[in-house]
């Protein structure tokens, strides 16, 4: 293999699994260290800059970082249940215990004369608004709802996300001089463009819940509700009760929110019934756990066939039992098992089987091209549509995802809009800012805590179930207190503190290979990657993780480090007699709209 090019920012970025997995690339270990030090405000600002909604995401994020977390792999074979660091809930710790951070928010620059319209007041639009308002853009956010927040406010139940958290974090953005026009439905894109906005950002989400057109749907309509519409009605107080027996159809996170909300509004016998198997459900594992913890059964492999009704009133749902088979192409099909159909009697049904986009207000003849699924054609990198002034983001750009993706889109769209308004090439993307700084303080001292905690993941304390189910506005999770937050933060392996190897200093004494607790380091003859992976001290089976290969050493061998399960404990560097190993903090911050991304600074050379 060729020596690894560690000067390319992607190499060490990939080692920070959580940050690499995060759509917004939040520097996770950086803020977790700050949480451990009790510097909650600093930790909050690291998040705020990167993901805009730390308090909201700290409760609701889909957390792509956690399945990626190295801690989960490291604990394999070492304990009963390998689990990642509770990254998401540590974000909440930062939000819960921070001091007043308002003095630290940026001051908007003088107005630059450019006007940007954001359609929809969800996370994507608000991110665009924040990034651009600071630069002096006049940003106006339109939303049909009276209050800003979009799906954050309308679809996420208050027992998961209290109102005051939304008010606070949306307020920080509006406080930057962003104008919000609530209760304003934008009826025509053509008319909007004619108003002469310099750019229009569409962040309207996926506002239409998919319906289920099976027999009985019309007859029993009074007691069949589309999940996200029902959740919005609950959130705004229009719906305050539901029948005693409730069936929720669908296996995604919306279904989980529906069943848990129903349980709080009078539903005593609430069930979730899903077409697929339990493991294939789209809902996050923890959301399924939360629902089951509240006494809600999840029934699988049942396809709804018909709503049953009597006298114009819903009486239940009939299901066909199926199983999964795979055809020769590996595609999965659900086929009936032939068992008799099952009928579940109920008073209300909530349909949460998916969401769709709706662009009825965008004329098809104004230069915005749509694909055959009714989605605007959007460049996935620049988020620009085929109309140069129109940009998309969040669920309305590339289909339903989640808040953190919406934020990531918002940042990229803001860069595109800024470049577009300055007459620069939108396709020319600014590089992230990366730095690599030695953490050495003394012979055995580092400016990070390199002792590895062996604690298992801490559970987030919950409110007593009887109290939690009694009031839909009472938050279920109490969050970590400071002590638990510290203990959980200590589980973080500091994967951003990189093992950096200088081959010219190495005397091949084997000290690093001997001390490495995870057998990551080998001194071997070089070879092709596939073959080299089998010859290391511990075979490097996880091909998703890179090998760090040095240049040739004096004996003709190379140093090969398998990044997979490195603890970043720094013992290799402590044991190295010549300083060939050093622990260096890699900090990568994504470019955001503004001065730094107008020029292109080259990434700093590694030491």
């Amino acid at each position, binding site marked *: 293999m060729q020596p690894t090019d560690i000067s390319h920012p992607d190499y060490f970025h990939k080692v920070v699994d959580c940050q690499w997995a995060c759509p917004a690339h939040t520097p996770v270990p950086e803020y977790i260290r700050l949480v451990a030090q009790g510097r909650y405000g600093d930790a909050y600002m690291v998040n705020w800059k990167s993901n805009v909604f730390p308090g909201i995401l700290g409760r609701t994020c889909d957390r792509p970082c956690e399945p990626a977390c190295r801690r989960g*792999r*490291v*604990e*394999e*074979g*070492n304990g009963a249940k390998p689990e990642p660091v509770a990254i998401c809930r540590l974000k909440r710790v930062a939000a819960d215990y921070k001091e007043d951070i308002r003095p630290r928010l940026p001051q908007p620059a003088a107005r630059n004369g450019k006007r940007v319209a954001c359609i929809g007041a969800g996370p994507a639009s608000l991110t665009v608004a924040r990034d651009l308002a600071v630069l002096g853009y006049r940003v106006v956010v339109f939303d049909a709802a009276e209050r800003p927040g979009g799906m954050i406010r309308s679809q996420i139940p208050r027992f998961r996300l209290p109102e005051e958290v939304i008010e606070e974090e949306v307020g920080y953005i509006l406080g930057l001089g962003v104008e919000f026009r609530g209760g304003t439905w934008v009826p025509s894109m053509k008319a909007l463009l004619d108003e002469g906005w310099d750019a229009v950002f569409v962040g309207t989400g996926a506002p239409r819940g998919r319906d289920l057109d099976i027999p009985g749907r019309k007859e029993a309509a009074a007691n069949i509700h589309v999940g996200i519409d029902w959740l919005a009605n609950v959130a705004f107080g229009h719906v305050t009760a539901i029948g005693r027996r409730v069936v929720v159809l669908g296996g995604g996170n919306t279904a989980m929110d529906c069943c848990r909300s129903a349980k709080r509004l009078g539903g005593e016998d609430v069930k979730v019934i899903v077409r697929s198997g339990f493991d294939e459900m789209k809902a996050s594992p923890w959301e399924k756990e939360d629902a089951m913890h509240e006494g809600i059964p999840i029934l699988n492999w049942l396809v709804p066939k018909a709503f049953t009704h009597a006298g114009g009133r819903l009486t239940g749902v009939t299901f066909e039992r199926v199983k999964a088979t795979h055809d020769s192409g590996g595609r999965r099909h659900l086929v009936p098992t032939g068992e008799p159909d099952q009928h579940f009697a109920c008073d209300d049904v909530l349909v949460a089987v998916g969401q769709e986009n709706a662009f009825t207000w965008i004329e098809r003849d104004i230069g915005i091209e749509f694909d055959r699924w009714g989605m605007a054609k959007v460049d996935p990198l620049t988020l620009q549509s085929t109309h140069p002034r129109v940009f998309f983001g969040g669920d309305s750009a590339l289909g339903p995802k989640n808040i953190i993706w919406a934020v990531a889109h918002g940042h990229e769209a803001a860069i595109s809009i800024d470049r577009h308004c300055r007459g620069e090439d939108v396709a020319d993307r600014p590089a992230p800012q990366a730095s690599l700084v030695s953490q050495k303080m003394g012979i*055995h001292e580092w400016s990070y805590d*390199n*002792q*590895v905690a*062996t604690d298992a993941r801490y559970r987030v304390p919950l409110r007593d179930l009887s109290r939690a189910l009694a009031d839909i506005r009472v938050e279920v999770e109490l969050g970590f207190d400071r002590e638990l937050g510290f203990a959980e933060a200590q589980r973080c392996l500091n994967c951003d503190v990189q093992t950096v190897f200088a081959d010219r200093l190495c*005397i*091949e*004494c*084997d*000290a690093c290979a*001997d*001390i490495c*607790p*995870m*057998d990551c380091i080998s001194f071997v003859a070089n070879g092709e990657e596939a073959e080299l992976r089998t010859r290391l001290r*511990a*075979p490097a*089976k996880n091909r998703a993780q890179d090998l760090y290969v040095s240049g040739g050493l*004096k*004996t003709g061998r190379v140093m090969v480090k398998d990044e997979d*399960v490195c*603890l970043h*404990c720094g*013992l290799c560097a*402590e*044991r*190295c*007699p*010549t300083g060939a190993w050093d622990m260096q903090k890699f900090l990568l911050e994504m470019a955001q709209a503004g001065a730094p991304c107008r020029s292109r600074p080259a990434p700093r050379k590694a030491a």
Partner: protein
Amino acid sequence: MTYLAKPKLHHPDLPQNRLGYTRRDYEGTVSTLCAGCGHDSISAAIIQAFFELAIPPHRVAKLSGIGCSSKTPTYFLGQSHGFNSVHGRMPSVLTGASLANRELVYLGVSGDGDSASIGLGQFAHAMRRGVNMVYIVENNGVYGLTKGQFSATADRGSKSKRGAVNTDSPIDLVGLALQLGASFVARSFSGDKAQLVPLIKAAVEHRGAAFIDVVSPCVAFNNHPGSTKSYDYVRAHNEAVNRLDFMPRRDEVTADYPPGSVVDVVMHDGSVMHLHKLAADYDPTDRVRAMNYLAERAARGEVVTGLLYVDARAEDLHYHLGTVDAPLNSLGERELCPGAAALREFNAALR
């Protein structure tokens, strides 16, 4: 050294031996030697060898004297018996322990100061008596604990870190061991575990005095140009006479070697050493030729490594003395006080 304990976490795929132990179970506490010390590599090789042999850690006694090398037993086999003796007196303490309990595996760890200076006499007698032990000398040619004076194994003409030239003749412990009747003699290098680990395994299985001289660079005081015990010098002058594959008795022999390239040596317990010849004319079963070969090569400044001499049918001290088969601590009153009749019989034999 480091102040941190090595984290208990280990690689998810860390293999287990026959006893269900991992290599990590054979470690000791974290080393306090200088970073990069060759001795730490030898400790790692010992850990690997005992892990691979699947020796129950509590059946091992590790004994040492004084010095950097003699500190190392703390850093491996943390679940084994240990004894830190007076400077240079490890061999006699070990001999006594071995006589008392012959069922343990005895591992003596010493250094060039401990064995070639203050303990030279002790070393000599352990070798000639054939005490059943592994005797490892971690040989760095320098007194590291007292800041780098030449030791008795430093080569004449080699330079100290300060630039002083050694004028004394060196003691070659391998040569002495051969002359004194050790029945397993090897030399290796701390920086070559592929060579060292099989040698330690074979030495553990050998019955009798097994001596391994391991050149182990002192990174702090003897790893500079002009030293003959530095990483660079040893790598440049290392002449391995053979490479060893050790096959414990239990393992089926599956390796397939080209004819003529390998000498198989069957040990007393049925274990097999496959010796790959690297020096065509070297015969590790011929003591006199081995001594000559070593002397010739040493005169050229070469460091000869490998299994230098083995007498697979050697007898040990217990055999020579006709001692009782069982460890002394397992003997009951009936065996220890056989009664008046046995005493009379014994006395009659002396008349």
